[in-house]
């Protein structure tokens, strides 16, 4: 046994170096970007010699930036509500049921998640025109909702597959009709999955650029605003905006991760 431990030690040290190097690779660019938001100069670049909070106070007193935040959050919340309802419904249909065309249905269900970003944006743009949806908030909400449905379906199906069938059967035996059995047994069991999927959809929508860009009207979402500002030149102001967005998404992401894990453990 000892020999074996010896044998794997070399690999282990090498691989742990690779892991920590990877951690650096994913964190360092973001840390640098955050630091640059505190630079006391309009010029983006290293080294940073003096520091300031002016860019942040600027962001929080900029009416356009603040309204863009609100706009993005509203889009994220509304599109998530649609995705969650539709996604859960599709998951209930697909999980553990055999019917003609189930495979095709499943394939088409995950399709929006597999279409490359630009093509998905173009297809939605053309279809919005066809349906008569004007570019703007409604169009973005619709596109985000459709794009995020597959993620809800996959998460909810995974949870649904672990629901003991006997519970539903017991409810039916006691006289519950299918709807009440769903509302009182299935739905409560799905809550952790639905919450986890909701957070994921919120972040996907809040972070989405390409669909918001092609379906948006005059009012930009946050990523579109940052993109527009970047095209006219880098400035620490953008760093401050990006940092606030980063903190928001990272905190929600980590909290959701812990929350769903705890809920999964409890049940």
């Amino acid at each position, binding site marked *: 046994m000892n020999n*074996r431990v010896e044998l*794997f030690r*070399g690999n282990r040290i090498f*691989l742990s170096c*690779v*892991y920590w190097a*990877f*951690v650096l690779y*994913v964190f*360092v*660019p*973001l840390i640098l*970007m955050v630091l640059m938001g505190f630079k006391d100069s309009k010029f*983006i*670049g*290293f080294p940073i010699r003096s520091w300031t909070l002016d860019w942040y106070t600027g962001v929080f007193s900029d009416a356009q930036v603040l309204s863009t935040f609100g706009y993005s959050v509203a889009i994220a919340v509304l599109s998530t509500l649609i995705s969650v309802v*539709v996604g859960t*419904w*599709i998951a*209930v*249909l697909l999980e553990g049921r055999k*019917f003609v065309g189930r495979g095709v*249905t499943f394939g*088409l*269900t995950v*399709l929006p998640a597999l*279409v*490359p*970003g*630009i*093509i998905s944006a*173009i*297809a939605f743009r*053309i*279809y919005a025109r*066809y349906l008569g949806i004007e570019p703007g908030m409604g169009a973005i909400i619709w596109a985000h909702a*459709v794009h995020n*449905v597959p993620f809800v379906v996959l998460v909810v199906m995974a949870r649904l597959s672990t629901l003991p069938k006997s519970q539903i059967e017991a409810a039916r035996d006691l*006289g519950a*009709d*299918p*709807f*009440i059995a769903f*509302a009182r047994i299935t739905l409560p069991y799905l809550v952790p999955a639905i919450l986890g999927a909701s957070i994921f959809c919120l972040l996907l929508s*809040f*972070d*989405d650029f390409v669909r918001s*860009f092609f379906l948006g009207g005059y009012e930009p979402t946050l*990523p579109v605003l*940052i*993109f527009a500002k970047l*095209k006219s030149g880098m400035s620490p102001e*953008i760093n401050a905006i*990006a940092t606030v967005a*980063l903190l928001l*998404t*990272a905190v929600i*992401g*980590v909290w959701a991760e812990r929350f769903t*894990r705890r809920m999964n453990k409890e049940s």
Partner: protein
Amino acid sequence: MAKETSERTFWGRLASWGPYHALMHLATASPRRQFLILAAFPILWILTQHLGPMLQMLRVSLTDAYPVAPGVEQHFTLENYARFFGDSIFWQPFFRTLIFAGVFTFCTLVLTYPVAYFLARHVSRKNQMLFLLLLLIPFWVGEIVRTYAIMILLGNTGAVNLALKTLGLIDRPIPFMYTSFSMGVGIVYLTALYMLLPLYSALEKLPKSMNEAAADLGAGAWTRFRRVSLPLTIEGISSGCTLVFLISTGFYATPVLLGGPSTTVFAETIAGFFHVAGDEWPTGAAFATIMFMAALIITTVFQKLMNSLRKGDKK
């Protein structure tokens, strides 16, 4: 007794409420009807919302004018596709996109495989989630913000150039930005997670004893990797690569911000047809369709190849 308690709850009252009861009776009259009621909305949604946009794009790509101006008749035509094959100016960004996507996918695989391997095999169960979560945090951050972070890292006055200068390795900053290199760093940075997760779940399923048995039989580290881990994780590699390849072909903002005139990708070409007047839409739709078809064919062939590789190994 049981009836009494059930009637006190909301659900009990709902169940015995006349109209609801009648409705439910009607809906659940036969298993067939029950299924139809459950399936109608999802099927309708999938057909109109998931398939609809793709079919409409295909339809528009086959017309000569869209949106149709009043008084103008719309004709079906293959002109838009002919335009792509007729002009080499479009082939260049097209093949560049596919080659870049392939190369970046391979880079992502090479970069994340050892990380996934370390997580799945050398970290205790208890810590695995913690180590994985640490890597997930940056991936919650959006595409644009992370692209911007790469711009700051690689700029002429960026962190990398400053570090190289301080070390005395260079006198003048290296122009990393607006090249295929900066684009590659950005895209690998954005897609790494989509490779890492499938690899991790494939490696996690692999029993530790297999590697130990191979080691007992005298296999070295490289042989163990090549003959044991690699063949048994082909499924994870295959799905990770497919995902990353599809995502890489679809990036628009990242190539615009990190690339230059010599790295124009097909996404920028397609987007160009939608920024100008409406009558270019059919061409844009045709180009998007070509792109999608090419990406689908490549990933399907790749998956088939990987599958046959796996089956061949089992024999």
